[in-house]
């Protein structure tokens, strides 16, 4: 996912938990855009205020997205935390502050991919006596339930692009053009990727029975 993906009006609201708030200088509105930060001198304090305000509005939605991708609350929080730190570090170089949410979401998705890759590596190295690298927390397992965990585990076995297409389509309820814009691929590719991903997910779930 490109860091400078288009931030369409609909795209700005795709995150669950993004509630918006009273619009004040430096605080993000519902669309994730930032008031009073488009032009003018930008200092560390301004960046800190703006990034913190964006975090307050969108952190929960991004953690939810990350927990679907990773299945681990701690990892999801870490990924989102790191994404916002990345935004803070890059703040001065972000020409269009209205794209801050897109940027941080891309960072979070990249972080989820890295986390899953790290787990696969660890699994390959793991010995019989070690705790599986993708072990979910007991709290998460209890809250989500066996049936749902099977589905989510199968989802995480899909290739990254397929996994993200499914989450965008069936969790975030994005349309095909929106998914195409977010993933930086054509609408036709979205359609075929989603279709293949659903079929693959169905096969994985059958295999697990």
């Amino acid at each position: 996912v490109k860091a400078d993906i288009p931030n369409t009006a609909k795209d700005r609201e795709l995150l669950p938990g993004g509630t918006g708030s009273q619009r004040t200088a430096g605080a993000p509105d519902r669309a994730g855009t930032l008031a009073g930060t488009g032009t003018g001198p930008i200092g560390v304090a301004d960046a800190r205020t703006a990034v913190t305000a964006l975090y307050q509005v969108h952190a929960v939605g991004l953690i939810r997205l990350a927990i679907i991708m990773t299945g681990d609350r701690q990892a999801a929080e870490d990924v989102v935390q790191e994404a916002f730190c990345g935004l803070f570090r890059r703040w001065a170089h972000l020409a269009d502050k209205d794209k801050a949410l897109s940027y941080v979401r891309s960072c979070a998705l990249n972080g989820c991919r890295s986390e899953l890759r790290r787990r696969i590596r660890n699994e390959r190295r793991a010995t019989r006596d070690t705790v599986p690298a993708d072990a979910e927390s007991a709290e998460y397992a209890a809250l989500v339930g066996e049936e749902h965990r099977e589905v989510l585990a199968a989802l995480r076995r899909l290739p990254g692009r397929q996994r993200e297409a499914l989450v965008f389509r069936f969790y975030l309820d994005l349309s095909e053009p929106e998914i195409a814009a977010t993933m930086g691929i054509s609408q036709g590719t979205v359609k075929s990727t989603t279709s293949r991903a659903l079929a693959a997910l169905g096969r994985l779930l059958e295999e697990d029975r």
Partner: protein
Amino acid sequence: MNTTEDRLRAAALAAAGTVAPGSAPPLHLPDQPARRFGVPGPPHRRGWRRWAAPLAAAASVIAVVAASLAITSGGGARARPPVPSGPETAPARAAALASVPPYYLTLTGYSGQPHLHAVLRASATGSVLASVTPPRPYGTFTHVSGAADDRTFVLAAQRWVPVPTGKKSAAAQRLDNAARTKFFLLRFSPTARTARLTALPVPMEPGGLPQEGLTGLAGIALSPDGSKLAIAIDRPAPLPPEITVASVATGSERTWVWQGKGWIGDHMDSFQPLSWAADGRTLAFQQGHGFVTAGARLLDTDLPGGNLRSSSRPAAQWHFAGDNAGNIAITPDGSKIIAPVTTFQRHPSRSVLQITEFSATTGKMVRVAGHWQYAGTAGGQDILWTNPSGSTLIVISPDISPAGHRYLPNPPWAVSVLTGDQLTPLPRANAHYTGEIAW
């Protein structure tokens, strides 16, 4: 959940539901970004570098002054005695409204009148995001309930029948309690700002809001993952009340009947007597005796249907005064019951309302989250939503922050976010019956 799509959707919602609103940890940013801050400009504006140093110096001065002011202000605040319910600041208000689910579904109009439709609003602003009318032949929605995600709801719909009363003032229609209730799943898409209504295969229960001497729907509750619907049915004595839990996907159901004295829900009003824990298995329901004692019991919905008393265990008990006992909620981890506890004193006529946390294990009171006293009879006070720890609630209460020992004369009531002593009214949130609003 038959299709892979449905299973995936439900699983994603269940996983997302484990992250409660307002539960994000604090953000820890590095002291300094990796690179020096300045005014980013297009490459051809080479002159900006000349201003970088002065601007940085100015920003530093401003930051130091701002920090000094903040420290001064903080010192002053610490020097003052604590004010438990001071005026709410704009940031505090915004933070409170951001700590609850972003959308709520409510029925519009005044109950008792026909053709209530559902409106989905933003919690933070009250703005309407989507609106849904009952599909024909249903004339009105009667109850709503929400899943743990922020966008899945269930609505109960019912028919109306004309009533020739001969009086202009009387309603020309009434709820058709002979017809049965139909349930619909509403899924809201925040991106498209559309709400999609799907008829559920859940068997239609007896229709009608509970009315004296009639069977009625006392409340519904959608499980956190949206896969089960719990339905409380109130029946005229001596028929026993019951609770049914139905699969949203298939309509298969289990029913537990309350054998013995006492009530489930409240036959005088339509409030929400049911609340799910996050495990999707434990259902808290309110059960009481007469107009004195109310309590919460926990039902294991994985057990086969049958006797509601033997399939459940008592979790807490309390006294109440007034016409109804109010909504209760169980915290998602199942550890606490949060209930409105009301007491009434006749001479002089005074009421005390307390939002109280009970341990679901021991039944003992853990904490009083809100405390109001006012002249007159106790009114309704309800818990509509709780975060995982019970520290943030959505309540119906007097429209004023918990007032300590001050007696309030006829306070207005509002749907608000209660965090500590801070009460933040939710813009445009209103519900005549508590079964008519859900997060």
